[in-house]
């Protein structure tokens, strides 16, 4: 029988690799471009897998599993590692028993992220190895190598992908599963796993020794590969940049670093000596370049040619190195953009329609509701990281001069998944420190922005089993919030009245909006229609930014039409119409 092969995305291949390598537990918090790893792991029933409420918890669950002896996979997007950094740095000291691989899916060019930090730096700071695959076959194969390394060197292994390795599909040769030997039995090893200063002081030297051993390993690791060709130019590259270099310049010599930390010093010196000109092609920070220059090795081109920002491509590499490129057509100008928008029927639409009307400062958070910042709604005024809306709103409230003017008042807006992720501690702080701000928790019973994953409030687990759904109003009350108000997001009067009351209140109010995501739960009512006789073409309804609406012109008369295939019948547009022109 011929070898079985499949076309897999990097994320699907990582899931497959975990299964083949005998992983027993996988934990994650969703985040593009990492989300599909666990969504695929869940289909391998040999692996126990779950969504955690945030990345720190996901990693800690993984640490428990690994020190108990099981092979473990933990995945997150790049900014998630910031949240999980606390356990990560000390996990470096304790080490593991069963192998632990932490996947960090970075997002150069910020296709769907708030920054483009280069997480290879974490490996260096936490003194743990960093592995970078360059296609789906490597995504699969490197997981097994990473787990072996983790066990051999008693260290967590940092597995860094980028959007292009995570989301590109390529052909993968599949294998079977190798189970870990024996049962997992719990043993106590206090000095290794209890990081008191006295025990941590004993562990730190071991971490430094481990790093030296890893450096030695790097010299012979199969993860690093030299491909000598024409030696007039030599390229050191990692991950997807390897593919770009090979595509653009098939004749050059390449040192591909699959183990990007710690670096193989001798191998690099040897390569640098063999080639006439040395280029370093790495997206993000000059991670290799700084270290290689620090070794006293002459680098002809690095960040001077390949920028710190955005992502590269084969044509870009070719252009930078040779100055050549295809004849380019002009990019069509003056085209209307097609940004994402609230879905027809989305429960966030009415809320933002009123927030805009009230002209308050909206302290935003990360989720579908962040789209409230885009025109024509343009009613979300800050967004930094998950969970920050309520705490930033509190900070604003404490310093801004008290005024009756709504433009000087702040409303924080946060989704259910983000509230569970890191908004609960922010709210606790606000109520403890006597905030007078207003917080809105938009509970749509799903983690919408990343594609509708389950969360602690949705009543189901990753595997689809029924679970206890956290009761947000009860949680908020238990924290000490006295004013907990529920509103109906499809009733604009209700929203306006209750928000105004909350803004007048000198004590904190938490507004809870319970309305399931229409996309995730496929909710739809009969479509609405526009009465062309009554419609004056004033475009007021268009300001709610719904793709089901559009303006038509017939015989010089302007009027709005509703696409019945898109309309979810939510009625928000009908409520802003002054002419009563929209109805069933």
């Amino acid at each position, binding site marked *: 029988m011929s070898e079985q092969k499949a076309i897999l995305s990097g994320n699907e291949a990582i899931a497959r690799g975990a299964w083949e390598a005998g992983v027993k537990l996988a934990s994650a918090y969703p985040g593009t471009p990492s989300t599909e790893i666990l969504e695929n792991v869940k289909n391998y029933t040999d692996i126990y897998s779950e969504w955690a409420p945030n990345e720190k918890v996901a990693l800690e669950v993984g640490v428990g599993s690994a020190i108990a002896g099981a092979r473990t996979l933990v995945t997150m997007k790049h900014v998630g590692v910031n949240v999980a950094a606390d356990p990560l740095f000390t996990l470096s000291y304790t080490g593991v028993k069963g192998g632990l691989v932490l996947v960090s899916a970075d997002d150069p060019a910020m*296709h769907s992220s708030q920054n483009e930090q280069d997480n290879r730096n974490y490996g260096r700071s936490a003194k743990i190895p960093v592995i970078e695959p360059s296609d789906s076959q490597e995504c699969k194969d490197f997981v097994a190598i990473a787990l072996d390394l983790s066990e051999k060197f008693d260290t967590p292994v940092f597995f860094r992908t980028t959007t292009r390795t995570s989301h590109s*599909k390529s052909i993968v040769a599949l294998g079977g599963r190798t189970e870990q030997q024996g049962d997992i039995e719990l043993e106590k090893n206090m000095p290794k796993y209890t990081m008191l200063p006295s025990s941590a002081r004993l562990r730190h030297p071991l971490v430094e020794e481990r790093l030296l051993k890893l450096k030695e390993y790097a010299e012979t690791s199969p993860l690093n590969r030299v491909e000598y060709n024409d030696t007039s130019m030599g390229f050191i590259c990692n991950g997807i940049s390897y593919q770009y270099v090979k*595509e653009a310049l098939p004749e050059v010599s390449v040192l591909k670093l699959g183990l990007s930390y710690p670096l193989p010093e001798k191998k690099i010196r040897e390569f640098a000596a063999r080639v006439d000109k040395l280029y370093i092609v790495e997206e993000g920070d000059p991670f290799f370049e700084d270290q290689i220059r620090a070794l006293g090795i002459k680098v002809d081109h690095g960040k001077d040619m390949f920028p710190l920002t955005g992502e590269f491509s084969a044509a870009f590499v070719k252009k930078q190195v040779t100055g050549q490129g295809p004849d380019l057509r002009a990019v069509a100008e003056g085209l209307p953009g*097609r940004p*994402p928008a609230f*879905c027809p029927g989305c429960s966030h639409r009415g809320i933002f329609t009123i927030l805009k009307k009230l002209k308050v400062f909206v302290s935003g958070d990360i989720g579908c509701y962040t789209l409230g910042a885009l025109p024509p709604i343009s009613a979300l005024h800050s967004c930094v990281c998950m969970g920050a809306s309520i705490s930033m709103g509190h900070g604003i409230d404490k310093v801004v001069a008290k005024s009756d003017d709504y433009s000087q008042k702040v409303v924080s807006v946060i989704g259910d998944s983000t509230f569970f992720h890191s908004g609960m501690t922010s709210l606790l702080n606000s109520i403890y420190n006597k905030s007078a701000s207003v917080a809105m928790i938009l509970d749509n019973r799903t983690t919408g922005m990343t594609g509708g994953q389950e969360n602690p409030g949705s009543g189901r687990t990753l595997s689809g089993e029924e679970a206890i759904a956290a009761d947000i109003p009860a949680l908020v009350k238990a924290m000490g919030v006295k004013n907990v108000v529920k509103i109906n997001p499809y009733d604009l009067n209700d929203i306006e009245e209750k928000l105004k009351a909350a803004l007048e209140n000198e004590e904190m109010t938490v507004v809870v909006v319970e309305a399931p995501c229409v996309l995730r739960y496929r909710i739809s009512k009969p479509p609405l229609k526009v009465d062309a006789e009554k419609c004056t073409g004033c475009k007021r309804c268009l300001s709610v930014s*719904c793709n089901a609406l559009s303006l038509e012109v017939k015989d010089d008369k302007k009027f709005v039409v509703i696409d019945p295939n898109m309309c979810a019948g939510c009625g928000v547009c009908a409520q802003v119409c002054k002419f009563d022109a929209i109805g069933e």
Partner: protein
Amino acid sequence: METTNILLAGVGGQGVLLASQIFTSVAIEADLDVKQSEVHGMSQRGGSVTSHVRFGQKVYSPTIDPGEADFLIGFERLETLRNLHCLKKGGIVIYNKMRINPSTVASGVAEYPDDVETRIAACGEKVYAIDGLGLAVKAGNARSANVVMVGAVSSFLPLPESLWETKIREVLPAKLVDLNLKAFHLGREAVKK
């Protein structure tokens, strides 16, 4: 076989990814190396979607650069024009004439240009404008417009018709196979005239 670059461009929800899947599985079956890349995430909520499909003897990069697409397959006319600069000199454009308003147009912030089709036609390359929606409805379901587009491209590729049919049978749910095969053939015929 030289590497073939197919760029698919459309709007979230139009089935761009399923169409890509048909291309990649046909290529694998023909024993070619293949890579496919798209960016999902924010593209869901009615945003623009592009998918890059590359196949040949050996494929390294998963993405197609501007000026390098052999085929630009537009699922909507504005998205076709938006990606026209990706077409290589001598490349072929096949697009569905349908119009889907972007949120910026729906909300009155921007206008949908009325010269999209003339601008596409002016690119100086072979252009096939197809009534993808009409053909899909004729095949039995408006949602099969993506497979109409696959059919249209297939007639330019040196791969046997039966291979496409086999893969459509594999990739689509059983009850949708017949109408999608019909959609495939309607697309294939549409560019032959």
